[in-house]
């Protein structure tokens, strides 16, 4: 079951090296990105590159290409993580209601650093 008796060695090897070249290129882009593009949102740009790299690794190094069942399972798990992020980050903490009075966030008055008096959280 699933064991291939013949391996097209040269062809598969070529794929490995092509993907390696792509990953190295993307890593290089990672370093010059802040000077090159999207300098205002480095975080988004970096994460975008990371997603492309991850996609290459998963598809070719981990042989997910053509795996329907496992692919669906991976997508389910990723969607779940995404939902956690949307709810916890997008809905809850980005609407943090106690910025002014909370001890764990910086005091809103500028110019004073680290003088947050322990108010009730």
């Amino acid at each position, binding site marked *: 079951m699933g064991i291939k008796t013949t391996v097209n060695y040269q062809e598969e090897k070529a794929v490995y090296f092509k993907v390696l070249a792509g990953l190295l290129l993307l890593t290089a882009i990672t370093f010059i990105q802040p000077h090159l593009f999207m300098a205002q949102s480095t975080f988004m740009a970096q994460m975008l590159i990371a997603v492309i790299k991850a996609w290459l690794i998963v598809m070719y190094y981990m042989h997910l290409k053509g795996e329907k*069942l496992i692919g669906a399972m991976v997508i*389910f*798990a990723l969607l*779940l993580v995404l*939902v*956690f992020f949307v*709810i*916890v980050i997008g*809905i*809850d*903490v980005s*609407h*943090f*209601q*106690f910025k002014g009075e909370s*001890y*764990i966030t910086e005091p809103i008055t500028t110019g004073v650093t680290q003088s947050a008096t322990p108010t009730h*959280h």
Partner: protein
Amino acid sequence: MSKTYFDETHCAIGHPKSTFMQWMLTIDHKRIGIMYAAVMFTFFFVAVATAFLMRLELFAPGQQYIDGNTFNQAFTLHGVIMIFLFIVPGIPAIFGNIVMPLMIGAKDVSFPRLNWFTFWLYILGCIIAISSLWVGNGFADTGWTFYAPYSLTTGTNVIFTLVAAFVLGMASILTGLNFLVTIHRLRAPGMTFFKMPLFVWGIYATAWIQLLATPVVGITLILAIMEKYFGIGIFDPAKGGDPVLFEHLFWIYSHPAVYLMILPAFGIMSEIIPVFSRREIFGYRTIALSSASIAGIGYLVWGHHLYTSGMADIAKTVFSFLTFFVAIPTGIKFYDWIATMYKGKIVLATPMLWALGTIITFAIGGLTGVTIAMIGVDIHLQDTYYTVAHFHYAMLGGVVFLLFAGLHYWFPLVTGRMYNEPRAKIAFYLNFIGFNLLWFPMFIAGYLGMPRRYFDYLPEFQIYHQASFIGAVIFIAGLVYMFYVLIQGWVKGPKVGVNPWRATTLEWHLPSSPPPLENHSKVPYVDFDPYEYYHGEPVVKFDENMRRID
């Protein structure tokens, strides 16, 4: 007399001669399930005893037998044992192991050695959890939720309990993984997903929760340990952390965990109802898919535990809305079960009694859950006995009652013998009356403002606590009597054939009772639905080679 799985076994390492070592090293799913059951019910009674100690203390206001700190440790011990050692692994580990492979016509689970390893991982977790009773500064006094920052600052031995919960979580993950692969790979030829028995559907949905939710609590416990030993400040507000994050991460697991408990229990219900109504189940697909959708929606509702925690208002609204949605698939299941019984030839055997009792108790438990899913109502009822009663009606009156139903239902399958039916019914009625007398007064006390986890109370609540106490005595008497009847049945009950209930699913078509080591003599080809009855008689029949003969 052919050999049964009690006579021979496969082992993880070597071929030991002694019976004891054969049990310790067995990779047979049926033996592993029995060992889980033995350990779990032992712990169950320890936790029941702890709960009874608390009831005893609460019989009258003021301090009688134990002080406040011991009381805190007692409810933590009760919660940790019941949740992490008993009810979370419970039905999957016991019946998922024993029955699920039989139901799909498999010889064993996909990774039998992993199954063996998982069992011992579970035992290791139990040992770590219990050892903190004697190691360090006493058992944790935080409650089973380990809320930060108190769990990070208390002097009691919280770390052991956290590590134990992590190890038990690992065991739970590996069980789920094993079952998922088993259900995907080892179904008998012809058995599509929509020809699987509904218990297998329950186990499948549960396994997904075990697999994907448990790692989140695992990492939360690791972060808490890092916090405690390395002071990374992640949950401690004194160092800049936010305890609300702990609650988020904790409940991202622990809320799906209650669905993890209830889904296989619903599966047992879906097995018992058609068999004892002698009728094909009503709405097979809706029950199967409602299990899947409860598992899916169950991931999205954890925030209803955080209404009073300082979470953003908009998040509360979203969570309240999502929580109502879970009631829909659960309601669908209830209608299907009741519709199955309609015009059926109902046989009031003990498993059916337990199932019918659960329809009442779980309906109360479920509907009171909808009331506290409302934000405004919850502000009043949060952390009161109302919530405690809701939780116990859902978990004890739902999951554990159905676990007992399964215990009676599959008893002849596992042991080859039958318990004393009239006595088992007496045990049921004792349990049912005791249970309701124990928990129902708490709804009222909680509504009037009795807070949970307090070891003292105002005099006006005494009547409710005393009623609960009487209920607890009856309930425990019922539990002890039930296990007495079962053990007596195993020792000297009459031998019964392979299919005493006239059920239709594959686990009742084994060559011998108790089953042989490698289950079915031949694997059948499954071209039939799991519950086919015609005029109260099973439709599908097999010859000795598991070929259909109808």
